[in-house]
């Protein structure tokens, strides 16, 4: 087993064709907060991945959770991380994929370009650690809001164009459901502190 990434939340190991996501104990956090949180996030991630995978969406196939409840085993996707292999042209595909996930009633909760992989030209969404089940417009809008901000901070030069392609594809795929989400998105942006133009 070798470590392939050390994220903020977990250590990612690779073992042949399997990926193991280990949510390490965070010593800064009180054990009473930390222990149940690591288990519940692992379980939630497993459930969300299972639902997406059953629906045939591009996500890692979940295999199992360890007995201790803090390790998630998944099938490996041989892809490149989208934040370094960034291309504006792929943004429509991301919009379509997120729409399909939204329609399953899943909110990703941590949509960034680092959580997207590209494999043979196809986009895959990974890291469902902060995901939850909801079909509420407001929750769905959170994904859009976070992604927009992530684009702005990570890919400032392409952010505008990239987001436009993404949101157009998302809107087309969501159809009638988009209107309510858009209203909430505007609301979140207005609530956001110190936004442009006061």
């Amino acid at each position: 087993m070798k470590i392939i990434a050390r994220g903020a939340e977990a250590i990612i190991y690779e073992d042949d064709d399997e990926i193991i996501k280990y949510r390490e104990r965070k010593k800064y956090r009180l054990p009473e907060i930390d222990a149940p949180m690591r288990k519940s996030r692992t379980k939630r991630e497993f459930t969300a991945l299972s639902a997406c995978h059953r629906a045939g969406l591009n996500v890692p196939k979940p295999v199992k959770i360890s007995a201790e409840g803090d390790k998630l085993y998944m099938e490996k996707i041989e892809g490149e991380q989208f934040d370094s292999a960034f291309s504006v042209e792929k943004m429509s595909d991301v919009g379509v994929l997120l729409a399909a996930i939204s329609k399953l009633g899943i909110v990703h909760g941590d949509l960034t370009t680092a959580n997207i992989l590209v494999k043979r030209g196809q986009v895959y969404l990974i890291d469902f650690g902060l995901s939850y089940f909801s079909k509420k417009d407001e929750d769905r809008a959170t994904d859009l809001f976070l992604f927009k901000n992530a684009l702005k901070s990570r890919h400032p030069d392409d952010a505008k164009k990239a987001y436009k392609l993404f949101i157009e594809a998302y809107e087309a795929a969501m159809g009638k459901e988009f209107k309510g989400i858009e209203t909430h998105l505007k609301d979140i942006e207005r609530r956001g502190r110190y936004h442009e133009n006061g």
Partner: protein
Amino acid sequence: MYVLGIESTAHTFGVGIIKDGEVLANERDVYKPKAGGIIPSEAALHHYELGPAILKRALDKAKVSLDQIDLFAFSQGPGLLPCLKVGYQMIKFLADKYDKKIIGVNHCVAHIEIARKVTGLNDPVMLYVSGGNTQVITYENGKYVVFGETQDIGIGNLLDKTGRRLGIPFPAGPKIEELAKLGKNYIKLPYVIKGMDVSFSGIETFVSQMIEKHQVEDICFSLQETVFAMLMEASERAMAYCKKDSLIIAGGVAANARLNEMGKIMCDERNARFEFMKKEYAGDNGAMIAYTGYLMRDYAQDDLSPKPDFRTDAVEIKYR
């Protein structure tokens, strides 16, 4: 080169004087509401009344006279408009009188710049925690970018509101910290991370319903442990995502020892550096405005009006 800076975004009226980037004086006075939260007009009145005396104190301490000052800087925002106006008017008066240039400084950027200077960390992630502000800030492509922030109220605001319910006067942070040390039983609170952002308003409501059902010490303990852990998680995410290897905590809430301890533990675990900020420079102060004004000395600014909603990423950083 002598630079004089005025800070007046909220509770604090501060005057800092620096010479060629070194701090000569950093004087201040903090408005404390008699009851309840900050009343902007009252805070502005405090600044207006005490401002000249604080200015004099700073000049005496630095052993310089006003005619020696080469550049005048003020905190342009974000903040409360009545308070911002006091600083602006005072600087405008002085700069006009001595015919010198004015630099408008972004308050959040000033916190980072003084932190970089006093800690020596070149490219840290900054967790900025005060009454109204809760932001995780990183430097990317010539700008300071807010990587994560509160989606509703500031952390200090949450502590003060809870403090008021517990009968603790403003600012409630220090007393809550003291009581938290005596708390033993953790009461489960909502832990709200939304991607890069945090949210406190739900916790505020939740805690308001706990009062009288639990020991005050346990409430303070549980509150601190929960919200600080959220802030640490948001900070760690910024560090991992933006590939930064150091952290500083600034703002009024940075005075909390437990928050700093968590920062140290988190950084140790990921082989990153953590530098403790001296209280003098962690909270709002005039020296940070003067120092950032010094860094920005060659900027040409058209709009010097106070900006209550001044965004951190609206400032182009040309000196880094």
